């Protein structure tokens, strides 16, 4: 039954409504506002950048951006060697290895026109030591910073430290203009950056940043007209943005494995370019070794033989992650030794039996994963299924997802028997992986009472390993590499950590761009991105 009262009126309203929709669609489609007419490259990534202060930066995205806006004293080049940037030459060590002398490059300007010199470098270093969130990484090594000459910096160390070379490549000690940061000596400057890099900051919000070439840059000129960063909240948005051509470049720091695979397939079809950097991020399982049941070393060894890394990387990442049987990424090693054992269910069963399991007694092990990291959940699920298939008479894995912030808080309290975690070294050196995972300041019968192993949730320590790590700080070259290999072997025998996979940073560009390059620390060299010339 029709209601004549409102029939006519509703038709009129419908017409007005449709006209309004059409008007909106027309005005939003009139010009190609979304198209990039500036000639700048649009780079997309996941997450936000809350701060551009190098003393504050710890997230990969902020580190990537700061590496384009500033230069470090040294960087690790694609061959894995230390390459002077703002330093003129390699550092020289005194005989007692407690003094480092660094000659600095001349004729380098900050973006505000201030000269880069030893004073500026000392200002930046001291500021980081004073307010830097990660200052604890270097504060126990640097005794004092001296500026004997305008272009010479002297670092006095508290103890000999071979890994200081790696520290000198850290983005956190990127020099900043003392003039621009004068009022920010003791506090963060979040939305500006005045460095010496190939780009200078044009505008900044946490969600988008615009970079333009720095015309007075001391090094090679950038090969594009600038970079517009845009940060999306989800992996789906990132994937959609590059697929629909709304962005030119996609950085893969946090993109999900399914999307990574789809992008990889698109690049194999020639629809995108894919660049691959040195893998610096490891995924591992930390085993709590000071409380039952995993205080039994035989059980930990059994678990070490129970994980099929090849299957896991195939199922979780479609082969785009590398299986890992070492805690130090391959890019930081001279030889490819992998001290952790391969998957051997028969040996694992023997070990479980030796520990008193398998004969109608199953080890029920809760595995905790970071619920906000999709890959960790998939790792846990795949491992659980693999164990059900091959080792069901000895081992049952129970999964437990907990938000990462809660996990980090409770790790040091020994709340998790086995927990899946990830780690990227603060600087590109094996020591940046071994120390944070195995250092211990107070050991009691293979149990760490105080130190990194406690924060990491393993509570495992070994005096011999500590001695070897300490010795490595006094050595250099091949001798040091051998010592670090020895340390890793000792760590593998303790089996408090099960390395699982290695994550390579990837970047995708639209086909008209050249293939992107990475430096040896896994950072993209954005200044080398450009549109291909016609004969390429």
């Amino acid at each position, binding site marked *: 039954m029709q*209601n004549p009262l409102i029939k006519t*009126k509703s*038709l009129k309203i419908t017409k007005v409504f449709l006209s309004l929709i059409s008007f909106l669609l027309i005005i939003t489609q009139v010009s190609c506002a979304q198209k990039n007419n500036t000639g700048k490259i649009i780079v997309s990534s996941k997450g936000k950048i809350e701060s551009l202060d190098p003393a504050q930066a710890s997230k990969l995205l902020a580190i990537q951006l700061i590496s384009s806006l500033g230069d470090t004293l040294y960087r690790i080049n694609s061959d894995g060697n230390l390459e002077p940037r703002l330093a003129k030459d390699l550092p020289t060590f005194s005989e007692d290895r407690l003094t480092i002398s660094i000659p600095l490059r001349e004729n380098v300007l900050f973006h505000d026109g201030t000269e880069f010199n030893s004073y500026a470098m000392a200002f930046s270093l001291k500021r980081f030591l004073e307010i830097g969130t990660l200052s604890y990484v270097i504060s126990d090594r640097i005794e004092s910073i001296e500026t004997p000459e305008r272009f010479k910096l002297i670092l006095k160390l508290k103890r000999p430290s071979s890994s200081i070379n790696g520290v000198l490549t850290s983005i956190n000690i990127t020099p900043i203009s003392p003039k621009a940061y004068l009022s920010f000596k003791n506090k963060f400057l979040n939305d500006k950056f005045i460095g010496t890099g190939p780009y200078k900051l044009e505008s900044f919000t946490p969600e988008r940043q615009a970079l333009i070439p720095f015309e007075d840059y001391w090094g090679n000129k950038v090969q594009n007209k600038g970079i517009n960063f845009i940060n999306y909240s989800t992996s789906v*948005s990132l994937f*959609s943005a590059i697929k629909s051509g709304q962005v030119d470049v996609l950085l893969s720091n946090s993109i999900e494995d399914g999307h990574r695979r789809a992008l990889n397939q698109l690049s194999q079809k020639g629809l995108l370019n894919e660049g691959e950097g040195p893998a610096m991020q490891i995924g591992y399982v930390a085993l709590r070794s000071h409380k039952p049941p995993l205080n039994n070393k035989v059980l930990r060894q059994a678990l070490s033989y129970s994980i099929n890394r090849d299957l896991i990387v195939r199922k979780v990442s479609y082969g785009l992650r590398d299986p890992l049987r070492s805690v130090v990424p391959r890019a930081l090693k001279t030889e490819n030794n992998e001290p952790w054992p391969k998957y051997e269910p028969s040996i694992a069963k023997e070990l479980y039996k030796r520990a008193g399991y398998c004969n109608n007694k199953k080890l029920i092990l809760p595995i905790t994963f970071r619920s906000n990291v999709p890959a960790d959940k998939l790792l846990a699920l795949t491992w659980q299924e693999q164990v059900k298939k091959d080792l069901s008479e000895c081992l049952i894995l129970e999964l437990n997802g907990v938000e990462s*912030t809660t996990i980090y*808080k409770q790790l040091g309290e020994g709340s998790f028997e086995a927990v899946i975690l990830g780690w990227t070294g603060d600087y590109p050196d094996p020591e940046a992986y071994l120390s944070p995972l195995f250092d211990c300041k107070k050991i009691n019968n293979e149990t760490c009472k105080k130190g990194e192993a406690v924060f990491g949730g393993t509570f495992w320590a070994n005096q011999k390993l500590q001695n070897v790590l300490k010795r490595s700080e006094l050595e250099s070259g091949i001798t040091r590499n051998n010592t670090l290999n020895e340390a890793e072997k000792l760590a593998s025998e303790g089996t408090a950590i099960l390395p699982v996979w290695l994550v390579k940073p990837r970047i995708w560009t639209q086909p008209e761009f050249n293939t992107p390059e990475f430096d040896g620390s896994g950072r993209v060299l954005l200044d080398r991105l450009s549109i291909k010339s016609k004969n390429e």
Partner: protein
Amino acid sequence: MNRTRAIAKYTAIRLGSIPIMLWLISTMVFMLLRIAPGDPVDAILGNRADDLARNAMRERLGLNQSIFKQYLSFLNDLIHGNLGNALNTQEPVSEIISKALPASIELGITALLIASIVGFVIGLSGTARPESKTDLAGRLYGIGTYALPPFWAAMMIQLFFSVILGWLPIGGRLPPGSSIPEGSGYLILDSIKNGNLLLLQNALRHLLLPAGTLGILLSGVFSRSLRINLNKTLQMDHIEAAKSRGLNKSRILFFHALPNAMLPVLTITGLTVASLIGGALLIEVTFSWPGIALKLQEAINQRDYPIVQGIVVVISMLVVFISVIVDLLIAIIDPRVSY
């Protein structure tokens, strides 16, 4: 007591209760955050920092003090209008909120506008032809949009309009490279005020998908509510009386039926606005919309207590104000309402 005085008294009581409500809410948030597992120091330093670094950071952030002292200091700051500084970036919380709130309000108001228009049109169409195909479609639409999971609907809409058709941007508030101009933070208002057509166009392009998605998802409730209430009203005696007095159709509809039918819709609108300010999270996440809900989620993840507390207090204030305004509007429209 006459009606005007009664309304004024009611308003005064409601406004007077705001400080008490805010105190209760902020106290609850303060306590819940401290009880929740996780530590802001871990979120800032990572879990590898040694005790020395952790204690220094704790001291710097004022977290070394007793919970009671922290609470007193928080209340004292709140009374003086100081929401504190973010633990992570040390940026004043009021600045963080003032940057994010306009984005959420712009999204919320546009979504509400779309929801009202769409809901009104569909509700009215259904009433025009009760039990017809249009009515059935409208009812299905109402139930469907209400039942759709927001994140799924948002992703589908994004896929269709941004990826397949390529008409609208994937997300954000403005195109890459363009920065938010100086002004109120409300891009549409700012662009109209400054006569900046390009900014207006860009702002509308970016607003259309998130606001459209949110608006469509909310419109079902409006259309259902309007249809039911309008049908009920049109059968009332006063409508028959109006018809018999020979009043024209439009007058009956807009001056006699609609005001009565709109009362429950207005109540729903009030409740929706309240949920919109903090509840548009999934839409803000999907469309990378830099609003207050997204900021709140990030702050919770980072255990950034001052930001969470600040945002909750501001949202609570808005919700209380809006509910008072809705109550007053209802009182003004409907003389039957007594206080």
